[in-house]
């Protein structure tokens, strides 16, 4: 087999596998299959709507924001300021959680503290402001208040603990893999 083709197949093995599963579902259970096709298509459309501007934004961040600035505001010794910025960035976000990963990665590439970046991901997942409003109208004030306060507290503890749980090498590996994807 052609070397290039083999590389391509290896790279896209999961894509191929899921596509095969989808095909089998379409053959075996046509009604569910049709629904799965529709949902898959709409997922792709959402992703193509959300990701390009965010990836472009991280490109702009990369070329315009110097590392020193990020270290000063979100770095190892930025203290409560870094935590506050993580909170603000996360709550003014929009989009599914996977859209937060590229943003988190560029923060790491610019040497923001790992704990703050993990906290940022937690805030993005749970306490995006537009969603908080919507949650309030759907489930009421007490539910929403307890949801946000308990989750953010645990996220904060988890974010601070993650640095204790990872060795210096695996922490560095996180920085490296995040940086490699934003170049």
């Amino acid at each position: 087999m052609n070397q290039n083709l083999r590389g391509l197949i290896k790279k896209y093995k999961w894509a191929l596998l899921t596509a095969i599963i989808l095909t089998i579902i379409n053959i075996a259970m046509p009604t569910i299959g049709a629904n799965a096709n529709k949902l898959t298509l709409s997922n792709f459309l959402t992703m193509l709507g959300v990701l390009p501007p965010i990836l472009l934004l991280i490109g702009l961040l990369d070329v315009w924001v110097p590392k020193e600035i990020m270290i000063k505001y979100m770095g190892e010794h930025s203290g409560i300021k870094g935590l506050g910025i993580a909170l603000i960035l996360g709550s003014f976000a929009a989009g599914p959680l996977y859209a937060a990963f590229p943003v988190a990665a560029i923060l790491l590439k610019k040497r923001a503290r790992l704990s703050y970046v993990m906290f940022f991901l937690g805030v993005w997942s749970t306490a995006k402001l537009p969603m908080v409003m919507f949650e309030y109208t759907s489930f009421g004030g007490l539910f929403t208040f307890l949801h946000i306060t308990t989750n953010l507290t645990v996220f904060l503890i988890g974010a601070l603990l993650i640095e204790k749980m990872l060795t210096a090498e695996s922490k560095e590996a996180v920085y490296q893999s995040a940086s490699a994807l934003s170049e």
Partner: protein
Amino acid sequence: MTTLIIYSTVTLLVIISFIKSPQKTKKAFKIGFNSFKKLLPTLIPMMIGIGIVLSLLSPDTISAILGEKSGLLGVIIGLGIGSVAFMPSFVAFPLGANLLTHGAGYPQIAAFISSLMAVGFMSLGLEIQYFGKKAALIRNLTALTASLVFVIVIWRVHL
């Protein structure tokens, strides 16, 4: 609406960036496009996987499962479905609110909603690609713990 805000903000930033330095702007585009290329092998199976899971786990199925189940088992099922399913909040919140009016318990709905938002089983592949296995797993376990703590608190206040 939010998409519109994101697009206009980014367009504005691109224009400012281009006026200041066309070269840097070109580089920014290249960085964005490159990371998209690198993500594609993970994004494609993720999108198909979510499509498959949601076709099996439709809002109707979720209602049927979560509506009847109560107690600890209901909470565990809620956490399980929430972790695996993937749907935007504007679908999930009305679904949860509707279940509550039809007699589902608050702790079970809390388990579902909280884990749905914070735990991402379907996006774990992408998360691992970005942050490595350990960090991705720790973040998701933290999110699961957070959901559990929320459930316990909701259970105690008897909403």
